[in-house]
């Protein structure tokens, strides 16, 4: 009896982490291959050698420089932003028990975008303010947005799925309009701000990576540590409380963390929509609802998705580039419609 009882459990546990491991391998492979693709083709072994040279500080030759100075920062930044947005998506979807919640649809990204535009347009002349102020102001406006959206969406004690999305769209468009106003008001900076706003990794650098990495790491770790609590939230607030979760403070805390992850992503790459919606959802379909694996897996798949989307953005009309926000919207729009049609409670 005992052996038959323990056997399937062990198999289940071992199997659980296999997809995560495979997707990490996938991410590394995609990053190496993407590094090789561009105006100059570089083979995977050469890519790896360039990375080695870069790490040991002995760059030699053109391909080393292309990889280490241009392509790798860009790819790493894309991966970080993808992971960050996907994690924010997991957290928002889990917290609101709403598969349509994502940093873009909730308006958080637009609010963050407004904050970042403000700094870029009016403080560009003061470098110190830009470096310190950009992430901070972005975060503050993102928090402001999420607070506004929650106040607007709340009906009594509940936050219905549709009103949450509607409030997100309304607040988001208001901030988008305000951002357009900034573009008009600060003409000299307008082109730069606009290019950033549509989403791009063209200006990636090691410095930018360093500026977002701490935020993404902190937010990522906190979201993953919240996995068991997020699972409890899926039972509904009443049962979560009865199982020992202080629901209100947990929600407030994790909303701030997910907002931080969003703001960090927006501050370096502009507004890239639908990643936070699609990735967690697809991963959930594939491996189930347990956040302990859903969160890390979404982060990795989000990174893979973003690296590929960026590869597409920079190579499809090369030497020109498409804004990456356009690509994710093209993929994400239909996906959103598909989800909307699959949710009976949304239509009714």
């Amino acid at each position: 009896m005992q052996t038959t009882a323990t056997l399937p459990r062990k198999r289940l546990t071992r199997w659980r982490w296999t997809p995560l491991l495979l997707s990490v391998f996938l991410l590394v492979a995609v990053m190496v291959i993407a590094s090789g693709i561009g105006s100059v083709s570089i083979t995977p072994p050469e890519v790896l050698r360039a990375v080695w040279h870069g790490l040991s500080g002995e760059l030699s030759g053109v391909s080393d420089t292309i990889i280490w100075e241009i392509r790798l920062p860009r790819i790493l930044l894309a991966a970080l932003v993808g992971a960050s947005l996907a994690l924010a998506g997991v957290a928002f979807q889990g917290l609101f028990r709403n598969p349509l919640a994502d940093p873009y649809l909730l308006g958080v990204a637009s609010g963050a975008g407004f904050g970042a535009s403000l700094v870029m347009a009016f403080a560009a002349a003061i470098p110190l303010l830009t470096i310190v102020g950009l992430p901070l102001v972005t975060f503050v406006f993102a928090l402001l947005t999420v607070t506004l959206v929650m106040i607007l969406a709340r009906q009594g004690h509940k936050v219905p799925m549709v009103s949450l999305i509607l409030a997100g769209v309304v607040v988001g468009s208001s901030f988008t309009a305000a951002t357009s106003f900034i573009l008009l008001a600060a003409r000299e900076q307008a082109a730069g701000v606009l290019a950033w706003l549509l989403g791009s990794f063209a200006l990636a650098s090691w410095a930018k990576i360093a500026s977002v990495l701490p935020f993404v790491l902190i937010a990522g770790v906190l979201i993953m540590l919240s996995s068991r609590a997020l699972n409890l939230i899926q039972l509904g607030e009443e049962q979560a409380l009865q199982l020992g979760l202080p629901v209100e403070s947990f929600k407030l805390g994790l909303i701030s963390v997910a907002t931080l992850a969003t703001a960090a992503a927006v501050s370096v790459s502009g507004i890239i929509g639908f990643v936070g919606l699609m990735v967690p959802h697809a991963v959930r379909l594939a491996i189930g609802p347990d956040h302990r694996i859903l969160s890390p897996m979404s982060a990795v798949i989000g990174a893979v998705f973003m690296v590929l989307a960026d590869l597409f953005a920079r190579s499809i009309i090369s030497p020109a580039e498409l804004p990456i926000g356009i690509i994710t919207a093209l993929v994400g729009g239909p996906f959103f419609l598909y989800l909307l049609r699959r949710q009976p409670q949304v239509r009714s």
Partner: protein
Amino acid sequence: MSFIAKNLNFAYGKKVVVRDFNLELTPGRISGIVGPNGAGKSTIIKLLSRVLAPLSGELYLDDKPLHRISRLKLARQLAVVPQGGDLPAAFSVQEIVMMGRTPHLGFLTAETKTDHDITEQAMRRTDTWVFRSRPVDTLSGGERQRVLLARALAQEPEYLLLDETTNHLDLKYQLEVLSFVRQEARRGLAVLVILHDLNLAVRACDHLLLMQQGRVVAGGLPAEIITEALVRDVYQTKVQVFKQDDTPVILPEI
């Protein structure tokens, strides 16, 4: 060791749903609450499990005010089997039952062999072990209810509150759940059940409260409080009450 509620009052807005409610839960005893719809029975469960805070009145768990105990600690001592509401789709039975270990594990520690053993036991005792890997959204109402019971057992509580748990169950499982609860009570569990079926209630409970519009209108030994006049009054319906081996049997007149 006891759980005491003193003069609880609660209202949703202006609608008063609980008035001057008193209760004491002690180990080994099954207390029951019966009453018509809207009597405030489920609200009592929410007040006792701190989902809602009373407008006035006091709650003590082992002489400590309830609001001074952290939720996690409270969940180690007190478990609720909710009314068979919806469970999140796609989680397996085993995963749902394992959530009952959260109060002991906290939110960060990984579950150990002990936790697996405890949940396995809880599932075996509630007859849910056979379908442990099925997603909960494929279960029937009764199966879901037993999963929720298993989860509460996995919490290893000292106090168990069941909110109309027998509603979705057929006769066999209704009786099984109640005799199961009786066994647990003998082993020292303090139990509060909310029941709809008066006949089940008088058989299952050592102590019974009859509620009407937020008020306790009668409380005591089931055999002593259940009378024709009282049931007719509270439920606004004609019944006959006769005794069989000192236990009242309530027969509605249709």
